[in-house]
């Protein structure tokens, strides 16, 4: 029997393949930020979050908001792989008539809120956390932020607000890959110490390697056990993680070279098929 970590790593690898396949198929999209988020999204959807794939609108489900909505292919892949909708739908990404819009949209099964206009997801998450508190319900709200979007002032409005209202049922996760659209976060608008910033607003701060499942899962657990204050996980990640030519290259924030990605996709498929029967029966 394989252990939980190994199993999650396989799902993460499969999501990476899905992302590469979807974006090369669509001809546009944002691969870099999908790949940096893949391990965290996997841990959320395959372990941490309490959801019912067969009943995506279950009122007591945990909520997830992908504030960095441009990374939605990895979220769509996770939803498909959990059985919320068929995997074959992934090839419709960004096509007219598809429910897999270029950025997440609330009417898509499994998507809890529209997002993609940056800097606003944590506010929405705070609203969900407030609603849970009023109703004395136990669902939790998870929000993943990109580090680029933290340039937006509204992020800090919501950060203040969540600690003021003691939203311990809210977890923020920063996908800290240190690259944004036009370059590194230090070049564009230096963030200073990310940890100190959040601490200054009285959040419980946990810093981890965002690609290490053995750090991600314990961080989720610590967050769940922290009362009276919200928790943020600063996840140090690598943009483009898992595709060598994309790693740490800000130009791969968006699809830079469709042919190169399509080529990579074929290569990945071949490698994964040979590596493990787990993949062989799931690749498309």
């Amino acid at each position, binding site marked *: 029997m394989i252990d939980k970590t190994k199993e999650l790593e396989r799902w993460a690898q499969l999501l990476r393949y899905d992302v590469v396949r979807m974006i090369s198929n669509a001809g546009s999209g944002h691969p870099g930020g999908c790949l940096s988020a893949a391990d965290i999204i996997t841990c959320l959807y395959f372990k941490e979050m309490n959801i019912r794939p067969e009943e995506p609108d279950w*009122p007591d489900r945990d*909520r997830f908001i992908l504030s960095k909505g441009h990374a939605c292919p990895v979220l769509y892949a996770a939803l498909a792989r959990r059985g919320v909708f068929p995997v074959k739908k992934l090839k419709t990404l960004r096509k007219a008539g598809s429910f897999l819009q270029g950025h997440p*949209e*609330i*009417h898509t099964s499994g998507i*809890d*809120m*529209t997002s993609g*206009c940056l800097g*606003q997801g944590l*506010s*929405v*998450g*705070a*609203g*969900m*956390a*407030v*609603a*849970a508190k*009023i*109703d004395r319900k136990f669902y939790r*709200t998870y929000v993943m932020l990109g580090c680029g979007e933290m340039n937006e*002032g*509204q992020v800090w*409005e*919501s950060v*203040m*607000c969540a600690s*003021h*209202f003691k939203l311990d049922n809210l977890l923020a996760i920063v996908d800290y890959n240190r690259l944004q659209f036009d370059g590194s976060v230090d070049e564009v608008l230096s963030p200073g110490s990310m940890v100190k910033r959040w601490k200054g607003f009285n959040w419980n701060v946990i810093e981890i390697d965002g690609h290490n499942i053995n750090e991600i899962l314990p961080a989720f657990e610590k967050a769940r056990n922290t009362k009276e204050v919200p928790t943020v996980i600063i996840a140090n990640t690598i943009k483009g993680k898992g595709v060598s030519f994309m790693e740490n290259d800000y130009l791969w924030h968006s699809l830079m070279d469709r042919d190169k990605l399509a080529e990579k996709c074929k290569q990945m498929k071949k490698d994964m098929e040979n590596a493990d029967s787990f993949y062989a029966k799931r690749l498309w």
Partner: protein
Amino acid sequence: MYKLGDSIPTRNAYGDTLVELGRKNDQIVVFEADIGKSTRSAIFGKEFPERYFNIGVAEQNEMAIAAGAASCGKIVFVSTYAVFASMRACEQVRTFVAYPHVNVKICVSHGGITPANDGVTHQATEDLGIMRTIPGMTVIMPADAVSTRELVIAATQWDGPIYLRLTRDGVPVIYNEETSFKIGKGILLREGKDITIIAIGDMVSKALDARDILSKQGILAEVIDMHTIKPLDESIILDSVRKTGGVVTVEDHQVECGLGSAVSEFLGENYPIPIQRIGLRNTFAESGEYELLLKKYKMSVDDIISGCFKVVGRKKKKR
């Protein structure tokens, strides 16, 4: 509760109604942006502190939080001033409230130039137009305290987002409590045959005053309170203009994109007739007393009257 002729700011009626609703419906939640004493939402907060959240001076956050709570089944009221809800938090309204079509009721004070002496920063004169352009939004401005109460109650039963604009200063009560109001259905206040005056919000009582004077001068004007400009009550307009053949619209707003535009667009496509729009014309107003500002910016009773004469004249030329 409200006596005919009394001058009552519609924000007061909003606060009173919120409390009334709060007692009946525990799904109602109110978010405020640190002006609860002014928007009157604080009255709700005093009675229902567990369902009242002062978000601070942060309207963008407030609007998105409201959307989040509404997505979890709450009926959410957002209180702030019209300028901030419609402009500071415009994208949040569009993308998180309107696009997901959640039950957020944006009820905002200081509509038009009713915050008169506060000056331009606090006078929202573009908001109706901005909100009207957003798909799926419902846009309302009640004329007095009675209709405010009725329309705020109706808002809680309405599926989807609403933008409802209130006045800072007092406006006369023109309705008795037996009048029934439906979102999207205008009210025929006075019958007439020579011209139709379609007004909204604080300008409805001005339209009624204009009608009284006009009738002494031989012009019988029909007066419609178009409290909802989106969805627009097209049938009440058609029924009226088929009789009168001319329209004057009156709004405390820029003449672009608001009531005048909505009516012109509809008539232009369906029943072209002479029309005159009363409202601000490509200008900001300024600090000053409300009635004086109406005069200075050509939105007074006299201006409505001269607008009516213009249209009646154009009708004759047409013949």
